[in-house]
C-alpha cells in the first residue's frame, strides 16, 4: 500500500493527461448528441454577452452614417421595387397562363453580427437571433444585398452560429445564369471557389452571374452568390471547372438576414 502512493504521484501528470485526452475523445465522439448541442448553445449564448456592449459602443459611432446610407439605399430600392412589381405582375400573369405552380414564399429575420470567427477548419459568425426568435437549424442566411452568406449550423435561444460560404466545408448547389447549368460550388485550396464538373459545352464566360439553384431545402432559388472569374481548361475532355468570386464581403458584415 505504501509503495503505490509514490508511483501514483510519479505518474500524476500522465494520469491527468490520459483523463483529459479521454474526455476530449468522448466529446469528439458525442458531437451530435443533444447534450453537446446544448453545451455549445450555452457557450455561444455566453459569448454573445461579451460582444453586446462592444457592438453597442460601435453602433453609437456609426449610426448616423448608417442612417444616411440606408436612406439612399431605401430610395434606390423603392425605385427598383416599383419596377419589380410591374415585372412580377406580368410574370405571375404569364406563369398562370402557362400553368406553373406558385413559388415557395419565405420570411426573413434580421440579425446583427456579433462576431466573426476564422479558423483553419471553419469560417463562421455569431448573430444575435436564436431559436426563440424563430431561427431554425440549417436556415439560409443572406446579407443586406440579398447575397448568399451561409447557413445556420448551431443555435441557442438568443444566438446562432452561421457557417459562411467561404468556409472550406461549405457546399451549395448553384446555377450559372447564362448557360443555366447547375453545379456544386465548393472551396479548394489551390483554386479557391469553384463549380466543378460543368459540361464542356456550357456557355460560361467570366463575369457571368452565379445564383442558387433552389435544389436544396436550405436556400431558395435565385439568391445571388457571385460572378464567374475564370474557366479552367477542359479536363478529361468532357467537363470543365468554373472559378467563382463570391459577392458578399464577409469582412464587413454587420447585419444579416436569416431566411425562414
Amino acid at each position: 500500500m505504501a509503495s503505490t502512493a509514490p508511483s501514483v504521484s510519479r505518474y500524476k501528470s500522465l494520469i491527468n493527461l490520459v483523463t483529459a485526452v479521454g474526455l476530449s475523445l468522448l466529446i469528439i465522439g458525442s458531437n451530435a448528441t443533444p447534450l453537446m448541442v446544448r453545451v455549445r448553445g450555452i457557450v455561444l449564448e455566453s459569448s454573445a454577452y461579451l460582444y453586446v456592449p462592444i457592438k453597442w459602443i460601435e453602433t453609437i459611432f456609426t449610426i448616423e452614417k448608417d442612417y444616411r446610407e440606408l436612406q439612399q439605399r431605401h430610395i434606390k430600392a423603392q425605385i427598383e421595387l416599383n419596377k419589380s412589381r410591374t415585372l412580377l405582375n406580368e410574370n405571375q400573369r404569364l406563369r398562370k397562363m402557362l400553368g406553373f405552380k406558385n413559388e415557395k414564399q419565405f420570411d426573413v429575420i434580421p440579425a446583427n453580427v456579433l462576431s466573426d470567427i476564422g479558423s483553419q477548419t471553419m469560417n463562421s459568425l455569431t448573430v444575435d437571433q436564436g431559436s426563440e426568435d424563430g431561427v431554425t437549424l440549417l436556415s439560409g442566411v443572406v446579407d443586406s444585398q440579398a447575397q448568399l452568406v451561409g447557413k445556420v449550423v448551431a443555435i441557442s435561444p438568443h444566438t446562432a452560429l452561421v457557417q459562411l460560404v467561404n468556409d472550406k466545408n461549405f457546399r451549395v448547389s448553384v446555377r450559372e445564369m447564362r448557360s443555366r447549368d447547375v453545379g456544386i460550388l465548393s472551396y479548394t485550396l489551390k483554386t479557391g471557389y469553384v463549380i466543378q464538373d460543368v459540361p464542356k459545352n456550357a456557355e460560361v464566360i467570366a463575369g457571368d452571374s452565379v445564383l442558387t439553384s433552389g435544389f436544396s431545402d436550405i436556400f431558395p432559388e435565385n439568391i445571388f452568390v457571385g460572378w464567374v472569374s475564370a474557366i479552367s481548361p477542359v479536363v478529361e475532355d468532357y467537363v470543365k471547372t468554373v472559378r467563382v468570386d463570391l459577392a458578399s464581403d464577409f469582412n464587413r458584415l454587420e447585419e444579416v438576414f436569416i431566411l425562414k
Partner: protein
Amino acid sequence: MFDIIKYSLLGLMVLIFQWMLGDIFSIYGRTPSFLVIFIIYLGLTHSQLHAIWLGFLLGFISDALTGTHMMGITALALSTVGYLSGIFHGRIVRIPVIVQYLLYTGFLLVFFILTVMITLQDSQFATGNIVFLILLPRTLYTLAVLSGLFIVLRVGAE
C-alpha cells in the same frame, strides 16, 4: 488557488483576444494561435497540471465558439501540448537556446498536426496542400510570435 484563478482568467482573456481580434494578425488567411502559446508558457513556467486542464478547458470553449464539426479536438491538442511543455517545467533554462526553439517548434507541430490534419482529413484537400498551405505557414507564424513573446517575457532565460 490564487494562481489557478489568475491563470484561468488570463487564459480566458487570451481566448477572447484570439476570438475577437485574432483576425488583425491574419496574413493571407493564416493566423497565429495565441492559445497554444499561452499553454506552452503555462506549462514551462507554472505547472504541468494546470497546463493540461486549462488547455482542455480553453480548447473546449474554443471548439464550441468556432463551430468546428470535431468539437473536442482543440481540447485534446492543447492538453497534450500542456503535458509536453510541462515536462520541461523548471528545466527549460538549462537547455541550450537552439534546442529550446526546436522544442517549441515540436510543441506547435503537435498542436497543428492534431487540429489541422485530423480535422481536414476527410476534406477533399490533398495532404501536401494541407501541410504546405496551412500547417507549416501557421506553425512558422505562431513560432515567430511565440519567439517574440518569449524573448520579451524572458522565458527560457536564466
